[in-house]
């Protein structure tokens, strides 16, 4: 007896036993069948089905797995999927089946299905706190959908949950960077809501969140968060930088300025900060302060390639400040940038206008030398320099506030009294004494450039004598001499000397500050530049090389520094005060008290600090604490609820969106895969799954009719006749059907009514088919059979099958 005949014998026996309802016996027979022909997958599958029917799960799974592996190895992925789906139904908790299913779906290009399997796995692993496993699955999901933000977030979160914080951080940073590139502030905020609980000790997270708040529309919250961060780390430059941005966003330019001021304290050469500081001054209406700052740093701006910025600032200042200095600098800038037309405008507007003397201290003449040097730096054409010198000379004649720059031997000394007091006031020296000073101080400055007839013909020495007089208290006259040494190369000197006069303006803010050392005294300050003073000069302006004119003001160190410090420190105290850092504010004020014990403003500031400090505890209680608030918000809902936790980033929502997206983007190949998978499911009796797949596949218009038909057939098999009827009717209602399509559908409807025990309706459908094509499938036989059934029914009439005897 050949093995094949054995197999047939066993098969017959199996079927007979099955018919008798003797499943166990049938199983034994099928086992023999499979033994006789191990590659007979159909019968092996039947065996698995019977084993599962008998709840012999392990054995059933083993047989199913053998079938599934066979299909997989031979490339029948759809069939393999259907088998694994059977296994999954049998044992829904076996994770490896989900893996297989996902992998197979992926191989088949059914990304949506694969993701669905992976999602189930992730939920399962998370529920069982198997985070590394969850991460592995999430990574696969990410590989499938690299652009899917939600999956990326879940992956990163998974790393964090599994303890791999470093990797989590890297992933989150990548996501953040992407979001930042898109300026997607709401999502950035959401991400931080996830991040902060995960990295509670990472202040950078809160900083980032604050930035997101600020860049979003919640600057106030961002600032509050930053202030809370500053309590732990008041000097954190990143925090301070973002804080300044926050103030800007909020329109609080004063605090923005103070913050930049604070930052500049430790990084005075940072031109970005300096630029922002000036911007804050300008936007805060402190044009004068902006001008001072710019005048002091314009050289650095030029050197740092920021001529454009500088130009913009000065052009703004032009309309804000009525100051000759603005025009002069603008002139230099236009020279440097080569904007001839603008240059001409500026130059033409300079003469005849109100002089610097009328400006309230802003037009300190000390800037002229620098201006000249900048010009030299930018424009190497001496001819041009000469022209400007000419021009400035002309201005000088009309302007009594200008310091005269004279290259001639005659060196006619002209004195230009400068009213520094307001400027001093602007420099934040203690106000009350300054107010007094304002009224009584007479400041005179004379600057005379003398041609020194010395053996060293190369060198010109410029001496500035500052004379301070106190007319009301004659004994208290002090003299401060400033010597300006001007080192000019011979050729330049010669050129300069050819000019009758040259004008040099010096910006003398610092000098003025020096002068105001004795605040309580009324002083008259006069700066004289003469030959005598030259010999006793203490400061000098020297031309050091061919290209530069350098102002080198050697102020008396103690006095000058002190005044500047006072101003800076008071601003510093104000900054701390504004940020609620009262200890720091007080520390700064107390430090100042040591040297300025009698400065009333210090006392005022201290009182202000004390008052604010008293307000704060109450305020702090109700203070908005974004981080804390978020925690508490989360505790109330999303974060604590592990189910919803996955949706904190809108994951489920977006995933479903994503699914919709995938579904709507199903191309023809995908639809075909769904269609084939539907058939495989149908063959294995997985009717619900089959219906789902046909639903998916029918998005491809070419498969619409097939899918509707097969869906209807599945529903008939399920006994859902009404559903099947609906499906067939909807298919029938389609306009694009061909005659053959209609025949096919009518035939299926005939089968439906036949199964539904409605022979009349069934016959009508089959007859409709036969009218078009008598040979369509077995429509003739169907009609005959139905006619007989109906005749019999007729014959029986309404005979009751139950009879009482």
């Amino acid at each position, binding site marked *: 007896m050949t093995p094949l005949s054995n197999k047939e014998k066993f098969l017959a026996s199996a079927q007979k036993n099955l*018919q008798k309802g003797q499943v166990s016996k049938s199983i034994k027979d099928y086992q023999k069948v499979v033994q006789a022909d191990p590659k007979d997958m159909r019968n092996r599958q039947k065996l698995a089905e019977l084993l599962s029917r008998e709840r012999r799960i392990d054995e059933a799974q083993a047989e199913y797995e053998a079938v599934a592996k066979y299909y997989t190895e031979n490339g029948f992925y759809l069939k393999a999927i259907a088998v694994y789906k059977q296994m999954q139904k049998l044992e829904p908790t076996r994770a490896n089946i989900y893996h297989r299913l996902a992998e197979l779906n992926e191989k088949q290009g059914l990304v949506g299905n694969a993701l669905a399997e992976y999602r189930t796995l992730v939920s399962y692993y998370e529920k069982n706190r198997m985070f590394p496993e969850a991460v592995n699955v999430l990574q696969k999901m990410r590989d499938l959908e690299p652009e899917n933000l939600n999956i990326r977030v879940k992956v990163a979160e998974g790393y964090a949950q599994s303890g791999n914080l470093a990797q989590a951080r890297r992933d989150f940073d990548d996501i953040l960077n992407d979001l930042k590139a898109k300026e997607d502030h709401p999502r950035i905020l959401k991400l931080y809501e996830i991040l902060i609980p995960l990295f509670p000790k990472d202040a950078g997270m809160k900083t980032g969140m604050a930035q997101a708040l600020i860049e979003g529309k919640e600057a106030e919250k961002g600032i509050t968060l930053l202030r809370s961060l500053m309590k732990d780390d008041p000097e954190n430059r990143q925090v301070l930088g973002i804080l300044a941005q926050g103030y800007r966003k909020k329109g609080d330019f004063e605090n923005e300025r103070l913050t930049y001021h604070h930052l500049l304290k430790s990084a005075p050469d940072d031109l970005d900060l300096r630029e922002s500081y000036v911007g804050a001054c300008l936007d805060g209406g402190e044009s004068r302060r902006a001008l001072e700052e710019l005048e002091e740093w314009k050289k650095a701006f030029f050197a740092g390639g920021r001529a454009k910025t500088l130009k913009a600032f000065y052009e703004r200042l032009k309309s804000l400040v009525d100051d000759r200095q603005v025009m002069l600098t603008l002139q230099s800038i236009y020279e440097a940038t080569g904007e001839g037309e603008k240059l001409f405008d500026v130059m033409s507007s300079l003469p005849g206008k109100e002089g610097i003397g009328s400006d309230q201290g802003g037009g300190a003449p000390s800037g002229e030398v620098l201006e000249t040097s900048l010009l030299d730096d930018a424009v190497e054409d001496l001819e041009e320099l000469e022209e400007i010198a000419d021009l400035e000379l002309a201005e000088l004649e009309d302007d009594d506030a200008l310091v005269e720059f004279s290259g001639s031997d005659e060196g006619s000394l002209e004195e230009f009294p400068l009213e520094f007091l307001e400027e001093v006031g602007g420099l934040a020296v203690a106000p009350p004494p300054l107010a007094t000073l304002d009224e009584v101080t007479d400041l005179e400055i004379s600057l005379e450039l003398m041609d020194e007839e010395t053996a060293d013909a190369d060198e010109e020495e410029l001496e500035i004598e500052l004379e301070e007089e106190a007319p009301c208290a004659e004994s208290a006259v002090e003299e401060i001499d400033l010597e300006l040494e001007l080192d000019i190369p011979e050729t330049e000197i010669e050129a300069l000397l050819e000019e009758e006069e040259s004008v040099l303006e010096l910006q003398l803010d610092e000098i003025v500050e020096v002068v105001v050392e004795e605040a309580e005294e009324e002083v008259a300050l006069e700066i004289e530049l003469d030959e005598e003073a030259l010999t006793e000069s203490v400061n000098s302006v020297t031309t050091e090389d061919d290209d530069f004119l350098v102002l080198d003001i050697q102020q008396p160190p103690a006095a000058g520094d002190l005044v500047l410090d006072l101003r800076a420190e008071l601003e510093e105290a104000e900054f701390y005060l504004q940020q609620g850092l009262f200890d720091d504010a007080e520390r700064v004020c107390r430090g100042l008290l040591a040297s300025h014990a009698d400065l009333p403003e210090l006392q005022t500031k201290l009182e202000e600090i004390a008052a604010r400090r008293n307000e704060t505890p109450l305020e702090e209680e109700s203070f908005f604490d974004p981080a804390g608030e978020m925690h508490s918000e989360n505790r109330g809902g999303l974060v604590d609820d592990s189910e919803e936790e996955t949706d904190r980033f809108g994951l489920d929502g977006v995933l479903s969106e994503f699914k919709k997206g995938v579904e709507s983007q199903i191309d023809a190949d995908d639809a075909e895969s769904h269609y084939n998978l539907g058939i495989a499911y149908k063959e294995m009796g997985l009717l619900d799954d089959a219906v789902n797949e046909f639903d998916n596949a029918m998005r491809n218009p070419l498969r619409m009719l097939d899918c509707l038909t097969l869906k209807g057939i599945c529903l008939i098999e399920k006994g859902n006749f009404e559903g099947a009827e609906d499906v067939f009717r909807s298919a029938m209602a389609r306009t694009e059907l061909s005659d053959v399509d209609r025949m096919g559908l009518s035939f299926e409807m005939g089968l439906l009514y036949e199964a539904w025990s409605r*022979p009349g309706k069934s016959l009508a459908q089959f007859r409709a088919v036969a009218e078009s094509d008598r040979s369509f499938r077995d429509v003739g036989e169907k009609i005959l059979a139905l006619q*007989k059934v109906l005749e*019999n029914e007729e014959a029986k009439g309404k*005979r009751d*099958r*139950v*009879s*009482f*005897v």
Partner: protein
Amino acid sequence: MSYAKQFGLEREPFSNAPDARFYFNSDQHKHALVKLMYSVDSNKGLAVVIGGVGTGKTTLARRLLDNLPEDKYESSLLVMVHSGITPEWILTRIAMQLGVKNPDVDRLVLLKQLYERLRQIDEEGRKAVVLIDEAQMLQTRELMEEFRGLLNLEIPGKKLLNIIFFGLPEVEDCLALDEPLAQRVAVKCRLQSLSVEIAVSYIKHRLQVAGSKRMLFSAESIPAIHAYAGGVPRLINTIADNCLFEAFLRKVETVNSEVVHSVAGDLGLLSRPSPSPIPPPKSRVALPSKEPGELDDIESMLDRLEQKL
């Protein structure tokens, strides 16, 4: 006056009137149905279902009838209502039920008519099935012989008629009246009374079909009902029905043991064995202990007998 509304029911759950909706597919009924279908589909000829009073024989018969679609089976259920019937009468009724249009009064002509009809049915690819309920009423040898004669209507290699008797255990006495007929019994099923566990499921099932949203019987009440009913479904119905009515009258929401005992008293069931808990059967399916093997043996034996015949 109905309690149904009071208990939120759509219909009375424990009516003894045949109602297919209430069919309770217990394991033993399920098995019996499979066997009977097997018997019909393989043209075994004669099958017998034996069970005590109220064990669900009629229900099973009607269920089987419902399972025999007309396109595949020419089937009929004859319910014996008295024992005085004659062989001619039963033959005529069977002929009529199977579709013989004008049954002749002459027995031989009638038999011929019936044979022709049976052949017609067979040609249609259908099977002829006659179910006889209350078969214990067929108490004469002539009747038994008539049935044997009908079973002999066959074409080469194929029986043309399947007969299934449903009856009390006395039906075996009737069969014994004609030994050759007794030997033709190809499938025999016995319906047992329900175990207490099955009784719980049974009561829940009927309540559910009646539209109950909750369990109307307390846990301890059902073993009492089961004990009074002796596990017999029809008695369970009667007791449970009365219990619900009693509960309705007493305005209690759930039937408890007190209600059950009261009803048992009214129904005169207190003389039955104590309603103390009946030890649960070893198997959830109340079938004879040797049932599977035994039936296999019987089947094999009958197969052998058929071969000899």
